[in-house]
């Protein structure tokens, strides 16, 4: 089972596709949630997801706008897609019949 932040990260990486890497994922999460995403949380979660085989990462090529430093590229694996789908389905099921606006 995924955690909330793990799900956010997987979803952001899946949406970014080929352009998924540290800074872009972080920006995506901040834009969607409106909350600040720390580098520490991002990179330790990436490691955790990779250990669970939900993502695969590799070092990309260096770019000038990054001061000649490489990106850590992220790709969501089939297991990652399945885990995110299960998480989403569980959240949808548990939310059925509950209207947060009415409470």
């Amino acid at each position, binding site marked *: 089972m995924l955690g909330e932040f793990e799900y956010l990260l997987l979803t952001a990486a899946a949406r970014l596709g080929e352009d998924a890497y540290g800074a872009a994922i*972080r920006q995506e999460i901040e834009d969607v949630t409106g909350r600040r995403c720390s*580098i*520490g*949380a991002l*990179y330790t979660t990436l490691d955790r997801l990779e250990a669970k085989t939900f993502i695969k990462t590799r*070092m990309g090529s260096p*770019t000038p*706008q990054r*001061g000649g430093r490489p990106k*850590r590229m992220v790709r969501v694996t089939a297991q990652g897609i399945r885990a995110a789908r299960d998480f989403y389905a569980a959240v949808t099921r548990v939310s059925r019949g509950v209207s947060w606006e009415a409470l």
Partner: protein
Amino acid sequence: MTRICWWLVDRLSRLLEPDEREAVRGDLAESGETGGQALRGVLGLVVRRQAALWKHWRPWLALIGVVIPVGMLLTIASRATANGSAIYIWLYANNWDWSFLENAGFRHDLAHFSAGVCMSYVTLMCWSWTSGFVLGSLSRGAIPVNGALFYLVLLLAELPGAPRYIGHSPLLYRTGDVDVHSVVFALAFYRVMFPLIVQAVLVLLPSLWGMRQGLRLVTFRPLLQTTLWIAALATLAAIAIPSHVWWRFNHLYLPLVAWDGWQARLLRLVVYWPIAYMAAQWGGPIAFQEKNT
């Protein structure tokens, strides 16, 4: 302020793995964060990485088995060495006359005491180097925390004065009762400054060097690793056994391992293994080639 923050970011990020360091520094450059934000981010990541390392047993063993007990014992040994040599340094420095050198007895005594003091310095350096070596090889990635704690123990144990009553080593020069030599220790230099200089030069620097070498141990071949571990553990035992606590234990329960036995004589020799290690490193024999070469 921003410059200082970025300098700190650079320093802190060196604690990360090379690939991660490059990716993080690149992310920070791309997102245009301020120095303060970057520092907070990198600090958070380093803290998380260090915390993760403490889930393993190695850093804990290094903390409990080396940092606290060996740190205390080294302080005692350092203080004993400093006090022991201070008396002879004071004696010769304050009464020096070149004409004494014409006297054969004086020359003999000078050579004898100089050799004794030098040997005690070398012994202390080897102990400190070995302590750092064991600490580095056990702690690995957690060395920044364990290394800092080790130096904190050395500092804290030195400032109020380590419990001298357990410091009793046949390998080091001893003062016996310091009060007997109150003329020497009435001088602030010999009482305060000299022990600190001895600790800095003969304990801090060699142990730092040993830590760096200890971090490389994992890259050596298994047989060499085992040999070095045996030598290092024997050296640590040589620090601990001469203390009164162990001396009593030996006499009560292990009479065969008394300090004057052949085992002890062997231990006294093994203590100097860092010299052989360093000589072999600089000589570059085949045995020291790393696994991936």
